[in-house]
């Protein structure tokens, strides 16, 4: 399926716009796209008439233009009829916002929807979903613009079974400074599934990382999904909710008891190089790391910090994640000490982690990080920056990220994410170096690069 037309529509119809209720989901979608996105928007309601002086069409077929994307927000029982009209009018694709299908036991209506889609080979996202957010193109979420936190344009695509989790994750991505290429809420995924979107996003030129939130696959679809992910040239991140095994289920064999649904899921993701995020925080850090770096590493980390405590905490977390913190060769240690500023030359601890002490300057961070980058046995440099120490300046982020351009060895930084340190954080991020908001988060970023089979 080709979703390009749906993700970057020129024309759009909102079916179910109310003539008198501005808070109706269809009206919210109509208004936000009309005012904020470069797409021509048409309102549809069987009653016709006008909405704020704009013509309301009685039928999608009456619209004088071909429609790229139709949003259906009418009651479930009207959806099949409206869909037929969309197919007849050669609409590019449809998002069904409406709920009230299989989640309320109306499997017949869901089946009808699938039948229409299959007969016409017609892409339908939903039902019971928010649909598509495609930065600077379109936004079918029925959430008022002023209430949403929208991440900027970027290269990460998220596909989510849950609209709520998706919107929440978007808030976190925005706060963390991660940009999105597409966000798709697929709801009950009656027609368009994770597999369809994976196949499309793998060749979508706006997307470099594909992240999924899911509760499970349909019958047999897990196998197809992992096979497609193995062929994807882009990293795939998956977070699965619903990990607890149903303990009471009677199982007749040892294997069935050992290989519960989640263990099978998790093992097979790992087998296929799909990066499984355990929770939303991992999802966030994995997404940021893989949006910056797409080469695999073995996971041998060189650490630079200005506090012994940060170093110890980082090493503990590296151990837990099976990352190595190799010893530095003696000659390299000497070179580093030689190049440090006089104020710390004798007090810095030049081991791995390198502790530059609270008297360190920008130059010292640059020297230490450069030397670590030059060591073959180290494939990622972790910088635990303490932005509050007196001699560090707001230039340090930008300066350190130049090292990546120079040596091509991935750098991951930790800087507390508060307003006053934003210039340092942006110095890194705008130069494509990921910055975590905790030591733990920074190590998750390294882990993602190690676990990524599609890097």
């Amino acid at each position: 399926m080709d979703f390009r037309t749906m993700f970057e529509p020129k024309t759009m119809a909102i079916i179910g716009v109310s003539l008198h209720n501005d808070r109706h989901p269809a009206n919210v979608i109509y208004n936000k796209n009309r005012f904020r996105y470069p797409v021509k928007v048409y309102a549809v309601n069987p009653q016709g008439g006008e909405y704020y002086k704009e013509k309301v069409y009685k039928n999608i077929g009456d619209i004088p233009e071909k429609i790229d994307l139709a949003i259906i927000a009418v009651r479930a029982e009207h959806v099949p009829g409206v869909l037929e009209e969309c197919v007849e009018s050669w609409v590019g694709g449809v998002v069904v916002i409406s709920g009230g299908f299989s989640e309320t036991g109306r499997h017949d209506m869901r089946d009808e929807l699938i039948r229409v889609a299959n007969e016409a080979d017609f892409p339908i996202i939903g039902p019971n979903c928010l649909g598509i957010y495609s930065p600077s193109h379109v936004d079918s979420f029925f959430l008022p613009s002023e209430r949403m936190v929208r991440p900027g344009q970027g290269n990460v695509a998220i596909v989510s079974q849950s609209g709520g989790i998706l919107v929440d994750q978007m808030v976190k991505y925005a706060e963390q400074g991660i940009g999105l290429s597409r966000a798709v809420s697929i709801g009950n995924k009656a027609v368009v599934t994770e597999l369809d979107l994976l196949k499309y996003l793998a060749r979508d030129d706006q997307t470099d990382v594909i992240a999924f939130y899911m509760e499970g696959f349909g019958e047999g679809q897990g196998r197809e999904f992992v096979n497609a992910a193995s062929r994807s040239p882009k990293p795939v991140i998956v977070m699965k909710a619903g990990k607890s095994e149903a303990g009471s289920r009677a199982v007749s064999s040892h294997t069935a008891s050992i290989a519960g649904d989640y263990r099978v899921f998790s093992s097979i993701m790992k087998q296929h190089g799909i990066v499984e995020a355990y929770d939303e925080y991992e999802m966030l850090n994995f997404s940021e790391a893989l949006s910056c770096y797409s080469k695999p590493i073995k996971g041998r980390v060189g650490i630079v910090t200005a506090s012994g405590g940060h170093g110890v905490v980082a090493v503990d977390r590296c151990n837990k994640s099976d990352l190595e913190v190799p010893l530095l060769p003696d000659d390299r240690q000497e070179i580093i000490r030689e190049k440090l500023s006089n104020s710390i030359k004798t007090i810095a601890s030049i081991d791995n982690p390198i502790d530059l002490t609270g008297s360190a300057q920008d130059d010292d961070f640059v020297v230490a990080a450069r030397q670590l980058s030059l060591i073959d046995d180290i494939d990622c440099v972790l910088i635990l920056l303490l932005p509050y120490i007196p001699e560090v300046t707001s230039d340090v982020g930008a300066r350190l990220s130049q090292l990546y351009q120079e040596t091509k060895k991935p750098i991951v930084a930790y800087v507390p994410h508060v307003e006053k340190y934003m210039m340092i954080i942006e110095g890194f991020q705008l130069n494509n170096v990921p910055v975590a908001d905790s030591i733990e988060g920074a190590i998750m970023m390294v882990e993602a690069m190690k676990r990524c089979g599609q890097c």
Partner: protein
Amino acid sequence: MLTDEMKAILEKSKGTGWVLEPDAMKILSIAGLDVPEYIHATSVGEAETFASKAGYPLVAKVVSPDILHKSDVGGVVVGISSDKQLRETYKGFREMKGFAGAVIEEMLSGVELIVGAKIDSQFGPVIVVGIGGVGVEIYKDTAIRMAPIKKEHVPSMVADIKARKLLEGFRGSEPVDMERLSSMVVAFSKLVMDLAPFVESIDLNPVMCSGSRCVIADARMILNNAQG
């Protein structure tokens, strides 16, 4: 490809919902997997004749369509070392529900592994390899992979087992022959792909692995509902 003999066994097992151990062993041995020297004895005499050929020690296991988990009901006796003990064991089995004879087989040594398969609703056939024996559900020390498995995947499965040192030769014990284990898992995975339309899950537990063999000491094949 399933052979006609395999198909016939699956067909006759439908009523029970699972394949009796001697039949499961038959399917496995047709597929080229190593099974112990065994007999499905339906009389004490048959058991004794086998013992006189094979020699002691031996293992005896009850055969009954009503007993899926034999060791839970005392249906597995290991280390039988005399005709007397063999007769007593057989007599004891005869009292068990659904008694249909006993499997008498050679005693094997080595590390007890589980090699299993499950047909998962999302992923299809998956293979489990790990530390076997009766404690398998307690330790759950296993690696899981989507089938089919290639030979080069087996070392990574072993690497996922926490107690892998037991396989590598621990405190002077003989290391497991990785080559044999790999071939065994690959042959099993191949069989599982063919059996997938018929089975729900398969336990080979224990598989006794030593420096020279990987032998399936016990097998359980559960058919899926469509076979009922």
